[in-house]
């Protein structure tokens, strides 16, 4: 109870709500992503008087930014975040029929319900999985990290080969600094700022914030000329709730699917949204109406994308392996708060875990008033000059990068990675595997080398332990199955 009452103190609640409103602003602005919102809020969260306030801000931003991306998706046909792309299909059609508010209210309530289902599953599954994870040693963690990295490359958008290269590049960047096993300096150039490695947050801000600004300017801030905010009929919340009740099984089904998909490393809310949309389209009796303003076409992806954010926390809390880029940044922040994710945290620090669970639950409820405010003010957001938004992002990026360690070096790191991020995305190299490589690289290396020391140089324990063998098999299946599926799909064409 004491954690619960603490969370409702003004010094916690106010920054929490401000953080959520910031998430709404960033998520609703096309071109600014949920990942960027979290990356920008993390440095600010460190200035909060206690860790729970900082965590509340970060968790609040991650959920609201995902929902807020659906607002421009519906009114402008421009997803505010990649996770909102699936909601564009039917949401915008409803907006063209003068029912944009109706669609977004459905969206808001479904996001909240999806998040609640996801957090509930997180609370039920994570502690059980943590007990199982206590059997893991260096050998199992090594393969788990490799599995996480490989999955992120396989499922990420674009080329699997480039995804793997991105993961390898991220792992290489993670070797900068002092070697954990031997203490040797690697690629530090005798610069004390590099002894602890590259600053994780400035790298994130550069990759997601600065690179996006470059991309937006280069694209000339083009926007679809389909602003439908003015033609809204103004449906009430009751109409939306009635519609959700009629699709209650879709909500539950999509939320559960979203949670499971979100738990897969690299999958993320965008894949969860598309998967839920596709599943509902194939199984619904009104499948042919999808894409024409079908309510189920809004319910499914919007329930799934917020549920996926919770799902991503499952491997993150239990194994320290983030499910997506947003959770990767949050994990980095947790470590800076000296909260080390892993199975032991459930036994050694249950108050902290309970606080995280409570914050995640309450955030789903606070999402409704914050999201409603976002819906009301979206028209005002559209009036802001795009150039001001882009310059503001750059300035916030500088503030965020500098404020962590009062270091101008971190600003230089951010600027460099802004260019690197732009270049890699222009070459269709996905950034999610790169971030996972940066986070999981030390886990891979440390567990491999420590495992080798324990096994006196033998590689056998990496293969003959049951959990290791299972993980290796999963890895092989993950790589082979897309190729097999491709062959199976080609066969009917050959028979014609």
């Amino acid at each position, binding site marked *: 109870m004491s954690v619960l009452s603490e969370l409702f103190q003004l010094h916690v609640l106010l920054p929490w709500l401000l953080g959520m409103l910031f998430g709404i602003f960033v998520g609703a602005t096309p071109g600014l992503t949920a990942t960027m919102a979290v990356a920008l809020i993390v440095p600010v969260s460190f200035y909060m008087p206690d860790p729970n306030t900082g965590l509340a801000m970060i968790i609040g931003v991650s959920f609201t930014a995902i929902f807020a991306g659906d607002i421009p998706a519906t009114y402008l046909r421009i997803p505010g975040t990649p996770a909102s792309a699936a909601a564009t299909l039917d949401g915008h059609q409803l907006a063209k029929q003068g029912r944009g508010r109706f669609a977004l209210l459905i969206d808001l309530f479904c996001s909240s319900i999806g998040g609640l289902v996801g957090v509930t599953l997180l609370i039920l599954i994570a502690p059980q999985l943590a007990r199982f994870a206590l059997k893991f040693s260096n050998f199992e963690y090594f393969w788990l990290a490799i599995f996480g990295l490989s999955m992120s490359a396989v499922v990420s958008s674009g080329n699997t*080969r480039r995804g793997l290269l991105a993961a390898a590049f991220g*792992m*290489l960047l993670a070797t900068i600094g002092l070697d954990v096993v*031997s203490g040797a300096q690697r690629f530090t150039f005798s610069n004390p700022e590099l002894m602890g490695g590259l600053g994780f947050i400035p790298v994130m801000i550069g990759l997601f914030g600065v690179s996006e600004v470059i991309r937006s300017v280069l694209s000339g801030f083009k926007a679809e000329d389909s602003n439908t905010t003015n033609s809204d009929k103004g449906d009430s919340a009751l109409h939306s709730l009635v519609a959700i009740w009629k699709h209650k099984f879709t909500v539950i089904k999509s939320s559960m699917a979203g949670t499971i998909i979100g738990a897969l490393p690299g999958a993320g809310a965008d894949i969860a949204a598309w998967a839920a949309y596709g599943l509902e389209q194939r199984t619904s009796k009104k499948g042919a109406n999808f894409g024409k303003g079908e309510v189920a076409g809004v319910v499914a992806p919007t329930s799934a994308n917020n549920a996926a954010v919770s799902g991503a926390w499952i491997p993150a809390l239990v194994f320290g392996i983030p499910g997506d880029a947003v959770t990767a940044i949050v994990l980095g922040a947790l470590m800076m708060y000296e909260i080390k994710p892993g199975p032991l945290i459930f036994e050694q620090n249950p108050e902290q875990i309970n606080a995280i669970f409570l914050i995640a639950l309450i955030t789903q409820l606070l999402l409704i008033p914050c999201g409603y405010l976002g819906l009301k003010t979206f028209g005002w957001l559209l009036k802001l000059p795009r*150039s001001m938004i*882009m310059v503001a992002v750059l*300035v916030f990026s500088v503030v965020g990068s500098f404020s962590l360690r009062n270091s101008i070096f971190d600003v230089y790191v951010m600027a460099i990675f802004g260019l690197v991020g732009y270049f890699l995305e222009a070459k269709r190299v996905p950034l999610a595997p790169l971030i996972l490589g940066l986070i999981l690289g030390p886990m891979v290396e440390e567990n491999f*080398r420590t495992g080798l020391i324990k096994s006196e140089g033998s590689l056998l324990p990496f293969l003959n332990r049951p959990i290791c063998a299972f993980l290796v098999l999963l890895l092989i299946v993950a790589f082979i199955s897309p190729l097999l599926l491709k062959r199976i799909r080609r066969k009917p064409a050959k028979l014609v």
Partner: protein
Amino acid sequence: MPNKGKQQNSGDLWLGLFFICVTLAVLVLSSSIKSIGLGNNFDPGPKAFPIGLSLLLAAGGVFEFIRRNPARLREEPVRGEAKSVLLLLAAFAVYVILLPWLGFAISTLIMATTMMMILGNPWWSALSLSLVLLTIIYILFVLFFRVHLPSGVFGMPF
């Protein structure tokens, strides 16, 4: 989900060169990595991972280079906004260099105004918007969140 089929086999010249250059840099710099000798404890050492990863990148880079699509090299480069981006990057580079000297307030005001003018705003609009932005940052970050920002040689409050 995007179609991965055709993308799997075509490479990219610049991406290939990027990864090859990274590999060469790592191989050269790795020679200066010194490890503390603890006897034969079966640890492959601090150089193993960087070198192994860079060789993976090299393999990928060579593949990208060999399988580069010549048609894409002949494509028209993106013009139009490219000049704006270069000017923006130059302004940003000058900004981060001058930031510790001029302090956050002065350098940000100059940078934000310049950038907004590059992006097509008239000078008075760019200056006004920059002042609004600076005010928001001061209230939010300096006063409310108590973030410390560079004050520069002029001893500005932020």
